[in-house]
């Protein structure tokens, strides 16, 4: 028990405490924050430029929340008709929806309003774009493998919702272009068999365009989808923190550790700083680069459209699918099935996303790989997967180009019909060609890696044999590089069941196992494996022999078919003694 040491008139005072420590103590007393955060504060993240792509998506989402909130202060999500009376001369006196009029108001009569509108739209482009590129990075490096399949799926949902959110967003101003987009969406809904017209009438509260779609989309755009996005982003990040980030293999970097810098202070500064950079770049884009100038399009009118109508870039693929699909329609028992809309608009996107979500499981099933992977793969070391991605990218690019076939025709003075016919074939042929080329390319790169491991790098030193044959001297690569090149798994084929095994297994299962073995055979196919220790040793022995300096002080060249009796002068060509790879003490130009 402690008492005051004086009987003075002032109360005894404790020593002045650090106010921050005080706040932290207060918080910990109530939340137990210290236990939860003691390990997270200095949590290690590995460093690589490609890990920044997801960060762009994250930060542009924050920019979207900030700029979007600003816009809601003025935007009126209403299709009620008003006569415009604002600052934009060309539209004064024109009847339009309140949504469009308030968008014009934000653009022309709110200081910083146009900036925020353009920043919001640019950030949306960045958001979806960064998610796409991030996804490709994850795919190409095998970062979706166990235990990260769930995060792959969450990422896929984020991408899908991001695209939907973008579409809802650019429909809100109710200008001629966005109304055309909605009209197309309505056409897609209406084409769904049996329930199509009902869906359309419920969504639009009657016939298109109705007066409900803008307020409804507004709620979806500012509340529903952002809420889901936020929750999914939270889950995505939590899993990332719990599972720890993947890393590239290298000296000291294994499947069992993470090597990098601590959250506080390095990543707090780097990632926090990067938020300001993304924000700043968006602000510069919003200030300097015009985007979606809705005032030029005019209010929506269902009987008008502008030539060269284009959606935002991420809808280009859907647009391309719609454009190149042939005009197939079936009439049966008095009902109409519009294959020309149903397949490109509903079925194919469903198929694409199903393959997307199922991919990690399909690959794991084919390869039989059930291990945890925390080391990234170089794209070349998974030739079939990389080739699949490049095939998909080719398909995406072709469809995207097909979505602008009119622009291509006008820009390059081509025949629009021929472009479309070409695309109809190219979407089947192009991805296959891209797949085959990429696979071979990857395997060639693997060969090059293997050569480098076994024979070293090209030193640039040319050796001449006594007969006059020339050969370039190879020198061994560093241990670091050699280790990094070999730090990958050996591909293991799934074995088909032998007849002896088959007896005990049901027939269908055997067929599946055979299929799997065949797929695995194709999957790994002719991929090049890293050399074994024995192969490396032989190569080393060979190299040492070549470089050996005999007792007579001479190096014997053992290259090509040479087997003569001449000896090679143990010196490299004059000047090469200063190539930076050797000690140069006592070396001088030989001058002969």
């Amino acid at each position, binding site marked *: 028990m402690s008492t005051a040491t004086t009987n003075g008139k002032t109360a005894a005072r404790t020593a002045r405490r650090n106010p921050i420590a005080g706040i932290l103590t207060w918080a910990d007393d109530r939340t137990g924050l210290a236990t939860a955060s003691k390990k997270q504060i200095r949590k290690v993240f590995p460093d690589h430029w490609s890990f920044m792509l997801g960060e762009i998506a994250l930060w542009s989402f924050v920019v979207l929340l900030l700029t979007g909130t600003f816009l809601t202060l003025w935007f009126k999500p209403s299709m009620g008709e008003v006569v415009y009376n604002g600052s934009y001369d060309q539209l004064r006196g024109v009847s339009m929806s309140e949504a469009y009029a308030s968008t014009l108001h934000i653009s022309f*009569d709110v*200081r*910083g309003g146009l*900036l925020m509108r353009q920043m919001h739209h640019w950030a949306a482009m960045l958001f979806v774009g960064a998610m796409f590129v991030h996804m490709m990075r994850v795919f190409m490096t095998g970062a979706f493998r166990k235990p990260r399949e769930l995060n792959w799926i969450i990422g896929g949902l984020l991408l899908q919702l991001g695209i939907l959110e973008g579409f809802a967003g650019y429909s809100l101003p109710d200008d001629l272009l966005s109304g055309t987009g909605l*009209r*197309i969406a309505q056409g897609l809904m*209406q*084409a769904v068999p049996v329930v199509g*017209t009902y869906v359309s*009438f419920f969504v639009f509260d009657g*016939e298109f*365009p*109705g007066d*409900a779609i803008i307020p409804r989309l507004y709620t979806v755009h500012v509340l529903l989808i952002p809420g889901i996005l936020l929750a999914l982003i939270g889950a995505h990040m939590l899993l990332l923190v719990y599972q720890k980030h993947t890393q590239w293999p290298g*000296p*000291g970097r*294994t499947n*069992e*550790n993470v*090597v990098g*810098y601590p959250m506080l202070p*390095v990543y707090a*500064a780097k990632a*926090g*700083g990067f938020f300001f950079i993304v*924000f*700043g*770049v*968006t602000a*510069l884009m919003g*200030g*300097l680069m015009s985007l979606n100038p809705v005032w030029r399009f005019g209010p929506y009118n269902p*009987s*008008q*459209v*502008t030539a060269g*109508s284009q959606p935002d870039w991420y809808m280009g693929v859907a647009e391309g699918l*719609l*454009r190149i699909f042939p*005009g197939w*329609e079936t009439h049966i028992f008095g009902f*109409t099935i*519009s294959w020309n*809309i149903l397949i490109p608009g509903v079925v194919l996107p469903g198929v694409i996303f199903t393959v997307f979500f199922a991919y990690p499981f399909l690959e794991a099933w084919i390869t039989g790989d059930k291990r945890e992977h925390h080391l990234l793969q170089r794209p070349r070391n998974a030739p079939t997967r990389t080739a699949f991605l490049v095939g998909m990218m080719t398909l995406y690019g072709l469809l995207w180009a097909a979505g602008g076939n*009119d622009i291509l025709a006008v820009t390059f003075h081509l025949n629009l*019909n021929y472009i479309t016919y070409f695309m109809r074939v190219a979407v089947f042929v192009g991805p296959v060609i891209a797949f085959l080329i990429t696979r071979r390319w990857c395997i060639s790169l693997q060969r090059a890696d293997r050569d480098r491991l076994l024979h*070293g790098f090209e030193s640039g030193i040319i050796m001449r044999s006594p007969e006059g044959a020339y050969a370039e001297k190879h020198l*061994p690569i*560093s*241990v*670091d590089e*050699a*280790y990094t090149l070999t730090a990958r798994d*050996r591909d293991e084929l799934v074995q088909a069941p032998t007849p002896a095994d088959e007896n005990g297994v049901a027939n269908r299962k055997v067929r599946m196992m055979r299929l799997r073995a065949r797929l695995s055979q194709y999957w790994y196919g002719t991929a090049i494996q890293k050399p*074994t220790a024995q192969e490396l*040793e032989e*190569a*080393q*022995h060979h190299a*040492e022999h070549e470089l050996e300096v005999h007792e007579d002080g001479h190096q014997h060249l053992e290259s090509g078919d040479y087997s003569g009796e001449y000896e090679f002068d143990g010196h490299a060509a004059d000047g090469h003694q200063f190539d930076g790879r050797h000690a140069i003490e006592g070396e001088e130009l030989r001058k002969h």
Partner: protein
Amino acid sequence: MTEHDNPTGTTPQPRGGHGTDVATVEPAGDPIADPGMHPHEPRPTDVDEKAARRAERQVATLFGLSSLFAILCVVSYFAFPIGDDPAIILGFGASNVALGLCLGLALLCIGIGAIQWARKLMSDVEIVEARHPVASSEKDREEAVVALNQGISDSGIARRPLIRNSLIGALAALGLPAIVFLRDLGPLPGGDLSSTVWKKGMRVVNDVAGTPIRPEEVEIGQLINAEPGVFFEENAEGEPKFEGTHLNQAKGKAAVILVRMKPSDITPAKGRENWGVDGILCYSKICTHVGCPISLWEQQTHHLLCPCHQSTFDLADNGKVIFGPAARALPQLPIMVDGEGYLVAQSDFHEPVGPSYWERGER
């Protein structure tokens, strides 16, 4: 053979300074042992106080510049007018450009400063953190299963299927109101999609001014965007009969185009011989693909192209699809001349206009 016993086979001399981490040979046949992490190499700012102070100045300058730009941003907000008489720089709205530039630079300076700080002055010693298996330990799993089973058996849900089944039923039944409550999202389609406002005797008028059209005013090769005359009529109270949403909904189906071709070029289908007036034909303007208004007219070939997805229709051949994703011909509106010499509809369209739908029928 030399006396090297380095297992790498590629590098005779391991570089000095390796081996700070445990070097292991993986049993999976990794041919080269992990050489371990390199020792930390100091940066200039780690060893040279002058370099460190320079970096400190750089970071502080960037942060200082940021404040400057933030102030400039506020100044621009008040300095450049917008609205009726906006200030213009180089053809851009001055306010937008200045605000964007100042805000962008203010933000970038903070970002670049923070990253420079991290790169130059914060420790760049790499830290190794061990990974633990993502899965819980066997013991934890077992305990969780025990707890789960205990909870389940406590509830008796397995032993008392009556409770379980009636609860499932109750929850499923709750789905009904959830769906039914959405019923008033919109009316049922009914026959709305199959008819338009066109009817016998309704004038075909210019879509901008609403003026009725005489056949002799339409030249060969000309295309006129037209609408039903009722869109420009007023009711007894002097108000437009159609406005706002109703106008847009009606327009989305009833918009038409008038074209005049040489009568000899036209090959009308059976029953359509009298649908035009001296080579003037009237077609729905709404594409049969997904409903964009069609208006790109190729005079010489009589082709009409949809700007959205490039479906092309031959108007001399009953609006037949000759290219693109549309499946059905463009619906034709039969027209004639009324007593005053103006073009009018003979009837409504004989089939639903616009994109296809399930219950559209085979018309």
